[in-house]
């Protein structure tokens, strides 16, 4: 069960090698979390992440999960929920893709969309149903500022996150009153291996800062969390910039 500060005792991470997810897990394990499920494609990195969290004192399990294989989600996630209540699900999988290559290779663009959006739709719905059965729990969805307004530089990734973001918001409203809390997290540019080699955007942040914002959001039972918080204001202004001008902005 979550305590009065929204800190979970059990955590399921979808996308178990995500740096933001692991930073969040480390932070929560230091507080209350004792059981962690890391779901992801079986890999040495996933096992390595499990070992690292175990060293912090958590009881860590890994479970094979492939975002692209929506048909397998029901079984893979059902197994986790059958083992006991999950207080928090962190939907953290996602790929950035390579915008210029994806534009010329539609199939690889589709892969971005399928991972970030359709994969999240099936996993999100399955988790939401299980949480609803429990009568409690938080579903924390890692969206992105990129989904707030499509940009020339990464609209394939951005559009997938826009879909995910809208899905999560709607899901949150659908689950209102069921005891399940859905929180959409919109980080700006996060310095991580996913963005390694990319030119840093203004107001860049770190996985640890996102983790801290998630912990605060859980405590406040927030529905939307921007990281850093000032992005809320910046993006609400940017959203209203006329297209001809927006195209020319160096963002």
């Amino acid at each position: 069960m979550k305590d009065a500060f929204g800190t979970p005792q059990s955590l399921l991470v979808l996308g178990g090698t995500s740096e933001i997810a692991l930073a969040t897990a480390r932070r929560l394990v230091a507080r209350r979390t004792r059981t962690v499920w890391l779901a992801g494609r079986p890999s040495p990195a996933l096992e390595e992440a499990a070992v690292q969290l175990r060293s912090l004192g958590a009881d860590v399990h890994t479970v094979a999960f492939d975002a692209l294989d929506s048909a397998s989600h029901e079984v893979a996630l059902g197994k986790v929920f059958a083992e006991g209540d999950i207080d928090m699900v962190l939907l953290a999988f996602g790929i950035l893709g390579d915008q210029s290559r994806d534009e010329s290779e539609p199939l690889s663009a589709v892969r971005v969309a399928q991972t970030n959006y359709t994969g999240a739709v099936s996993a999100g719905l399955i988790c939401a149903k299980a949480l609803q059965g429990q009568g409690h729990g938080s579903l924390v969805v890692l969206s992105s500022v990129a989904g707030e307004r499509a940009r020339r530089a990464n609209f394939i990734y951005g559009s997938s996150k826009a879909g995910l973001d809208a899905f999560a918001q709607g899901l949150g409203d659908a689950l209102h009153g069921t005891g399940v809390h859905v929180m959409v997290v919109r980080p700006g540019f996060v310095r991580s291996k996913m963005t390694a080699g990319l030119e840093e955007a203004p107001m860049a942040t770190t996985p640890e800062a996102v983790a801290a914002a998630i912990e605060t959001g859980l405590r406040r039972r927030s529905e939307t969390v921007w990281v850093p918080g000032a992005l809320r204001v910046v993006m609400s202004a940017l959203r209203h910039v006329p297209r001809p001008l927006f195209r020319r902005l160096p963002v």
Partner: protein
Amino acid sequence: MPAETTTSVTSVTGWGRTAPTTSLLVRPRTYEEAATAVRECGERGGIARGLGRAYGDAAQNAGGAVLDMTGLDRIRGIDAVAGVVVCDAGVSLHRLMEVLLPLGWFVPVTPGTRYVTVGGAIGADIHGKNHHVSGSFSRHVQSMDVLIADGTVQTALPGSDLFDATAGGMGLTGVILSATVELHPVETSLMSVDTERATDLDDLMSRLTATDDRYRYSVAWIDLLARGAATGRAVLTRGDHAPLDALPVRARREPLAFRPGRLPAAPAFFPEGLLGRTSVSLFNELWYRRAPKSRTGELQKMSTFFHPLDGVPHWNRVYGRGGFVQYQFVVGYGQEETLRRIVSRISRRGCPSFLAVLKRFGEGDPGWLSFPMPGWTLALDIPANLTGLGAFLDELDEEVTGAGGRVYLAKDSRLRPESLAGMYPKLPAFRALRAELDPTSVFTSDLSRRLSL
């Protein structure tokens, strides 16, 4: 014809308004309906809930059933000569006072609110300002009927395992249906109250130690925001039921009148962070200065003396949407150093707490998970959205367990399961009895899930 049991899917929290969870709220009107509800509560189990005054998650059951017991609200019989009442578990102490005071009887123990049910009073084994004299509530229970997991009703008598596990057992042994409670005789419905100020914590402790045994009721409001030399300054209010001859002649005509005042309810939406350090310091300063340095024999209404907050319905809303946490612990006599350290840590950190009370407990109570033990108990409210509060309270837990003390489960919403065994040495016996009576955990609450009770 009794009406159908009403049910609804509802999100509930404790009085602290943190960690809401959703469950099926079932409102039985008869013992049979309660038994049916227990038999049909499904795999996520059920838990009894009274008036929802437990601060944390004790009367919540995510995804399962919550039995709203306030429908079982009949007073079955009163022996006005011996001073005994037999009533359903859903009867509130407020109702008992309304009915019993005119007959010259008062409840044996009352907490800081009279809006608790008899079932809740036993389940949390509540204590009041008279603990040093009278012990906890369940010490005045002659017998109770408990609906256990198999749907049958057992009568539990003091000294039996079922009684001692149920007193303070947070509803996890079964649903208390009715109880026979011994009452305390009173001549009037007024209190004769002595008030004095203590300039710091040591002054407070020595005053309480020296003269507590002269009073039936004793408590001290403590200013936890005062720093430096004033750390732990307090206002002691102690007293007893006023005898008839202490009343002015006019009041003697109707000495047992029970007329608690009630202000308008707190509005539903309070801005977050209204109770910050500044506003609470100011309140505390005024509250301290307002109290007389020393005054004896003041006549107060019972509601003023025992239940000042009941005058404002929904006062728990003043903490805003984020809710609040109540932290109450006890450390034994001889552990005054720990108490001093905790008070100075709270004061140094500047926790904005305006409802902090210190009290001396008497002998411990027989309930296996009963909270009181001989020693000092401090209770404080803190807004839940205070940054770093969780970690801070964990540190206080360590101080408390290090001194052999414990934290009160009826107020808890954040304890770690690991901390529990050290605090409640009879926990293994409690778990064993539960495993025997209720092997499939029919009785489950968010508290029992969180703490693996």
